[in-house]
């Protein structure tokens, strides 16, 4: 097939620009540098507005998993995070309810809306984790679930007639609940995080932090951070994915000072200084969940929801999912998994 001739003066520049050994492109692509001759306004910045409208329109999926022994307040915390009953508390006080023999994976979805933004939130609970006498390999069903979501996405992506917006059930964030023993991490904590930090974004949180004084809290956090570092556990935000200096500075502070977040959750409101606040009432005072001097819940909330929500999704998609995909392709000899165009998959694109 005939292709047009390439202008020779651009060829040299082209080979500088393209480091990978690949078939030479048909056309020279040399950027002409920042244009300094703008004598007017074109309107390119409206692209931002268009993108914003588009994201508002399509809405967001967010899938958050909670892992930790029963009774650590996982469901309460998630409900507090999203200010609604998105997770059903296990009635742990009811002796009739059995502890599951193996780890179960329970995903419940909700559509919540705020300020015109619609979010399809899915909370994935993992009852049974760490509750048995013998907890060996109890992270396996969790790892399996996470990989199954990657597989689902991959299958849809390689489909011949694939959906315009592939439904995203991949786990974007995994909150791992550390018991506030005040001593150190438990072997199970280390094992879980070692295995799973390679496949999902893990955010460790210290649960029921109202059992520790400020000094105990600071010491415990330091010890936990040290242990995580010594064991090579990369929790989110991972150092190697900081995009630029701005990110690195912001994330360093979070990694080295704030995390793991010592949190308290509550779905009950009390009156404090004329305001309704979420809290826990004790004879010695009311613990205000959103009060930064009481606990770090607000930090966790701002971190996960207000500043890093999009980044959690992007790291999941660009890093964890791609790692899974690359492994699958390699295992399959460089080919995508076979797909068959079934009736239910076929959608007209016109």
């Amino acid at each position, binding site marked *: 097939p005939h292709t047009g001739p390439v202008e020779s003066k651009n060829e040299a520049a082209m080979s500088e620009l393209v480091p990978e050994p690949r078939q030479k492109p048909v056309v020279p692509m040399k950027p002409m540098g920042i244009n300094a001759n703008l004598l007017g306004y074109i309107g390119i910045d409206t692209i931002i507005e268009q993108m914003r409208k588009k994201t508002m329109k399509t809405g967001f999926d967010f899938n958050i998993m909670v892992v930790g022994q029963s009774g650590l307040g996982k469901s309460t915390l998630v409900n507090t995070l999203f200010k609604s009953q998105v997770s059903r508390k296990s009635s742990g006080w009811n002796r009739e309810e059995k502890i599951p023999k193996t780890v179960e994976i329970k995903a419940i979805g909700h559509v919540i*809306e705020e300020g015109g933004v619609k979010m399809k939130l899915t909370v994935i609970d993992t009852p049974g984790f760490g509750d048995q006498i013998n907890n060996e390999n109890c992270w396996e069903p969790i790892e399996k679930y996470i990989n199954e979501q990657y597989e689902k996405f991959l299958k849809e992506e390689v489909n011949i007639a694939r959906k315009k917006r592939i439904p995203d059930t991949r786990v974007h964030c995994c909150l791992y609940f550390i018991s506030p023993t005040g001593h150190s991490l438990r072997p199970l904590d280390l094992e879980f995080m070692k295995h799973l930090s390679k496949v999902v974004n893990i955010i460790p949180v210290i649960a029921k932090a109202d059992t520790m004084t400020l000094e105990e809290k600071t010491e415990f956090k330091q010890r936990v951070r040290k242990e995580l570092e010594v064991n090579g556990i990369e929790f989110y935000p991972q150092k190697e994915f900081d995009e630029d200096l701005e990110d690195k500075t912001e994330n360093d502070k979070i990694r080295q000072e704030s995390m793991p977040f010592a949190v308290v959750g509550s779905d009950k409101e009390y009156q404090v200084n004329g305001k309704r606040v979420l809290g826990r009432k004790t004879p010695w005072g009311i613990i205000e969940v959103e009060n930064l001097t009481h606990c770090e819940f607000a930090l966790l909330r701002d971190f996960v929801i207000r500043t890093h929500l*999009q980044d959690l999704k992007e790291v999941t998609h660009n890093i964890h999912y791609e790692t899974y995909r690359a492994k699958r392709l390699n295992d399959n000899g460089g080919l995508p998994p076979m797909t068959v165009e079934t009736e239910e998959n076929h959608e007209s694109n016109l």
Partner: protein
Amino acid sequence: YIQLLFSCQFSDSAGYVGFANLPNQVHRKSVKKGFEFTLMVVGESGLGKSTLINSLFLTDLYPERYIPGAAEKIERTVQIEASTVEIEERGVKLRLTVVDTPGYGDAINSQDCFKTIIQYIDNQFERYLHDESGLNRRHIIDNRVHCCFYFISPFGHGLKPLDVEFMKALHGKVNIVPVIAKADTLTLKERERLKRRVLDEISEHGIRIYQLPDADSDEDEEFKEQTRVLKASFTPNIPFAVIGSNQLIEVKGKKIRGRLYPWGVVEVENPEHNDFLKLRTMLVTHMQDLQEVTQDLHYENFRSERLKRTGK
């Protein structure tokens, strides 16, 4: 799924979670990344394509242009020439690639002249498909053509046979925006007549040109109204009748782009003189949609055809 709706104010009020901030997070990442856009221009020589592109983006993409004579043109076949420019405006970076197609329609026998163009478009799809299926997908470059301005001569009575053939061959591969060039050769009445004729012929031949998007049924009323207004402000002008100019002329104390005639000055950015501003506004406010349609419609069609053929 259970639907929970909150009416909330934008502050740390009791019910506020904060994920309404998500579009801002996306915004920040988009601005950091910048945008890429590829625009192709097709039309016979001398219709003012290069001048129009320079006017649209206030650049000088073709500084030392060599214009070949007729004898040379006989030997030439259609070429594909791409130039990339980085434009920054109010903190937003756009990497614009303009793909020019000199030689189109020049030959005495122009039978095959759009085959090269089709090949170029397909090659970009092919390359993207290859990259998308590969192992290292972190930095895929998108060179797919997002929009094609097709220049119609103002000197005829409507579409020429070549125009019809080209658009029929390409409307399934790229977003076509028809443009009537050198509109200053026509009076307003002649312009209207030509536009109507072109639209009739487009519809007669079943040619699918780029349509501005309609609002989806499930959107809120305010957004639907905005979309309707946007669509209504551009659709009656299609095809856009435009004039371009590389020259600055002083009019009423201001320097503006225009063409100086003995009988008056044609101002490029004067909406009463031509549709240039409409074309530019339409383009920049629909860059996102043009990319989306390229990805979701043209590319997906190419991809499914390709995959069906190779049985992979």
